[in-house]
């Protein structure tokens, strides 16, 4: 058994692309091994921005041998009436380079065939790898490629080196004009030259001598541990998110955390600006005190030790200059009359075919109008419409032109600085939130309403334009917008029926009635699908819980969420089993019958009279509970009727020969079914064990 060591040395791959390429490479290696029928042990695949390493254990030098069958023509075609070989059979033998006497009869599900059997497998693995590796590399795909040498082979960045060892011996292969060898380069700055590698052990030792921390996990823990040290030393919090951690992880082969400080006078700039300039522009992390207030410190990650504080001092100068720029933008933008910028939006295209931003904000004001009505927030109307009309003005400010990620936020900050009403500036400030489902809980109602309007306008615009989304394609972020709508509604507890909103949003773009209906339906389905995703993938609710609430044909998102939440609790408290049994039983009877009329006068037996009385007595209370969205209590109230219902089923024959009696009993059960269904379709719950979450 041998092992395979492969390393592709490249010039710096963009940090955020590295892990995706590493995963592709692993998959391509595995499927190639499969295809070539090469047995293997564990595969390890790790990457930095300058190297992609694959190590595969326990590979045999020859593939396993086995008997191989090659099917020729069907017997009735291969032999003529007299049993002599036809042209078809002769051609087959010629092609396979075998004699007629080698041919045997082979039984298949499709009938008798002629063919040959021969020894297969036993191929030289080294040769397969030599041939396979260039194919694997050519199979990698990238968002953007380049060419750089005579090979004209497109790749993400120039390839510098290929290390290929099989059974600790160099193996020859060539890709993009680079020949493989048993040499590897070390750290860009700290290592002088290539070093020779003759085993995996050599490789690992050589890298560590040459200042390369190969494994992502080790780089990650080094970064996190050093940040923790700084947090302890400075008694502060370092604001590190996944994206920045990923950036550091894949832009340093020898990560070293450093810290520095800047003139505290820049802390008078809004915190959002400071943070954006630090992270987006300078790839440095903001530092707060224990209460979350920004301090004049920063943290960064270098690719070398910073014993002389050169890196730290250098970054201090750089951040100072960046803040000077920020101050310049902040000062120059505030000289403009923010509200006057709205007229200039006539020159700014929102999207091709969808008009200008000026037209967009006019639409947003109308959507906001409908939203304040639907959510009973009429008191906010004037302020939120003002916010809607002016929420895109900041696209024309210097700050947002320089940092598009600050759009919305800047509009809010400029208005706050100008002394505008809190409702107005806060709505604009927050109307790009949430950026994703995992964002923190939203709190500002005005921002939520404006955000829903903006998202719905985006969705309606793109859908009307004929943009389609698939699992892998969503270039305009339609799915993200729909997710945001769901999250806002749930976070802010909005009792909002989306149907009228969708209709109005679509109407703004519809060319005719058919258009309107089609797009309305598309968006309805899109939002239903996103809610389903939110419940299943984000809240981890079980699929049957979600099914039980998704059936109902309303677009009141929050109801469905609260119902699903109630069911999860019912499951956890063990109440779901009797409810599910009850609902199934009711549906069995009710679903076969048309709607029946109930008449008290037709009640005959004691048990049905009791049931009717109990139902009458509980109905209004349960209806109230449902109306007030107390689905858990409503369900337990219904459950309280269960003994009476069970008694009814025990004693009463629903399918009485007397038709009026039968229909009356069915009608009574339909009423109870109606109560349950108003909460959810409990009959769809398949697992009644505790744990409504997956």
């Amino acid at each position, binding site marked *: 058994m041998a092992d395979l060591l492969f390393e592709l040395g490249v010039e*710096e791959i963009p940090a955020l692309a590295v892990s995706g390429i590493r995963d592709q490479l692993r998959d391509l290696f595995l499927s190639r091994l499969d295809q070539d029928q090469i047995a293997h042990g564990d595969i390890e695949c790790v990457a930095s921005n300058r190297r992609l390493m694959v190590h595969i254990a326990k590979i045999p030098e020859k593939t396993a041998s086995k008997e191989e069958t090659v099917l020729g023509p069907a017997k009735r075609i291969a032999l003529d009436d007299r049993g002599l070989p036809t042209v078809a059979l002769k051609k087959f033998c010629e092609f396979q380079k075998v004699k007629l006497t080698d041919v045997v009869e082979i039984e298949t599900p499709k009938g008798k065939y002629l063919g040959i059997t021969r020894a297969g497998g036993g191929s030289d693995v080294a040769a397969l790898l030599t041939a396979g590796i260039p194919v694997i590399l050519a199979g990698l795909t990238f968002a*953007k490629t*380049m060419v750089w040498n005579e090979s004209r082979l497109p790749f993400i960045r120039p390839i510098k080196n290929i290390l290929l060892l099989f059974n600790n011996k160099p193996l020859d292969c060539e890709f993009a004009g680079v020949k493989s060898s048993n040499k590897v380069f070390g750290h860009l*700055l700290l290592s002088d030259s290539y070093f020779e590698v003759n085993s995996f052990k050599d490789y690992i030792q050589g890298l560590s001598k040459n200042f390369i921390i190969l494994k992502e996990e080790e780089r990650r823990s080094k970064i996190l541990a050093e940040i923790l040290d700084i947090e302890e030393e400075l008694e502060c919090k370092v604001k590190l998110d996944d994206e920045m951690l990923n950036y550091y992880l894949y*832009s340093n082969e020898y990560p070293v955390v450093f810290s520095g400080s800047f003139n505290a006078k820049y802390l008078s700039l809004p915190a959002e600006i400071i943070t954006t300039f630090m992270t987006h522009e300078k790839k440095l992390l903001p530092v707060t005190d224990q209460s979350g207030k920004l301090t004049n410190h920063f943290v960064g990650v270098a690719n*070398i030790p910073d014993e002389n504080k050169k890196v730290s001092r250098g970054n201090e100068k*750089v951040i100072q200059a960046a803040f000077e*720029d920020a101050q310049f933008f902040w000062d120059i933008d505030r000289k403009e009359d923010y509200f006057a910028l709205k007229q200039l939006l006539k020159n700014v295209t929102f999207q091709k075919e969808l008009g200008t931003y000026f037209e967009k904000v006019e639409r947003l004001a109308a959507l906001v109008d409908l939203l304040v009505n639907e959510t009973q927030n009429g008191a906010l109307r004037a302020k939120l419409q003002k916010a809607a009309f002016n929420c895109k003005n900041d696209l024309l400010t210097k700050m947002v032109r320089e940092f598009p990620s600050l759009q919305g936020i800047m509009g809010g900050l400029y208005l706050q600085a100008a002394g505008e009403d809190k409702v107005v500036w806060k709505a604009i400030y927050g109307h790009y939130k949430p950026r994703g489902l995992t964002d923190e809980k939203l709190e500002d109602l005005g921002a939520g309403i404006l955000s829903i309007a903006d998202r719905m306008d985006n969705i309606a615009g793109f859908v009307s334009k004929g943009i389609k989304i698939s699992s892998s394609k969503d270039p305009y972020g339609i799915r993200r917008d729909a997710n945001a709508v769901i999250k806002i509604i749930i976070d802010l507890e909005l009792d909002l029926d989306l149907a009228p909103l969708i209709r109005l949003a679509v109407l703004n773009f519809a060319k005719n009635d058919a258009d309107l209906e089609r797009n309305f339906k598309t968006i309805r389905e899109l939002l239903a699908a996103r809610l389903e995703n939110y419940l299943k993938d984000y809240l981890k609710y079980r699929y049957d819980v979600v099914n039980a609430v998704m059936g109902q044909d309303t677009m009141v998102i929050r109801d469905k969420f609260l119902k699903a939440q109630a069911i999860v609790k019912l499951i956890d408290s063990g109440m779901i089993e009797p409810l599910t049994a009850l609902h199934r039983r009711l549906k069995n009877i009710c679903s076969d019958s048309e709607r029946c009329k109930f008449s008290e006068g037709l009640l005959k037996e004691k048990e049905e009279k009791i049931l009717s009385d109990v139902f009458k007595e509980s109905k209004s209370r349960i209806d109230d509970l449902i109306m007030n969205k107390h689905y858990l209590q409503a369900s337990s109230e219904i459950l309280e009727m269960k003994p009476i219902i069970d008694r009814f089923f025990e004693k009463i024959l629903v399918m009485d020969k007397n038709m009026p009696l039968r229909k009356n009993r069915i009608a009574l059960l339909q009423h109870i079914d109606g109560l349950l269904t108003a909460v959810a379709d409990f009959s769809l719950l398949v697992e009644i064990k505790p744990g409504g979450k997956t």
Partner: protein
Amino acid sequence: MSVQNVILKLQEFWAERGCYIASGYDSEVGAGTMAPDTFFRVLGKKPWQVAYWQPARRPDDGRYGQNPNRVQKHNQFQVILKPVPVDGQLLFLDSLIYLGVDIRIHDIKFDDDNWASPSLGAWGVGWQVMCDGLEITQFTYFQQAGGIELNPNSLEITYGVERLAMFLDGKSNLYELDWGNKVSYAHLKLEEERQFSIYNFELADIDMLRDLFVQYQKEAERLLDRNLFLPAYDYVLKCSHAFNILDARKAISVAERTALMGIMRNLAARIAQKYVMQTEGENHG
């Protein structure tokens, strides 16, 4: 190290590595890339190694002389290596060492940053080179110029001269730099920055510049019809500078921007085609 020493050292370094040392172009350009020594010479098959110091104008970057790090006219040191050398990155690091940078104690990073000039139909893939967080160089593998796929490709290394000098001199304000022999950067440039910022942001005559753009465009077209693609290219550069001032004046709407860029891109593409036709014609007799 003074600014002039940075330039002199880079000239020495690249001259020793086979580059022809050119002068910067004598027309306003936004970047060294726009000088004919790059724009034309990266086209076609012929190898080309050039290095030159190019003042570059970016009206929108003006800060009235108030910002320690940003100016409307800065200096670039441009290197074109065609075809791409095998060890371009190491060559570049060698040039830093030659300038006196100890690369073992400074955090030098190649940070993903693709370069594109939509108005010239040119783009490349590469990095901004950061030194302790300061962007000192743009390092680009050219892929296309004038809308033409490049084969062979060129490596473009564009040093920011002031940034390098600041780094080498440990200065945090470029106006504190010594240009050379005790002539200070502030003495040379502060007033220029102040006046041009006022002009670019506040006083530039918008109507006149729009009018000039159209006239330059017409002149470029007229010259192209006569196959004089070199002077035609000069007028595209003039279009580009007029455009940049209009942009700093916030006089260009998004729709108009696309249209004006399209005009320049089409001219650049026609110019590039004429150039290739003529020079490749020579190659093939």
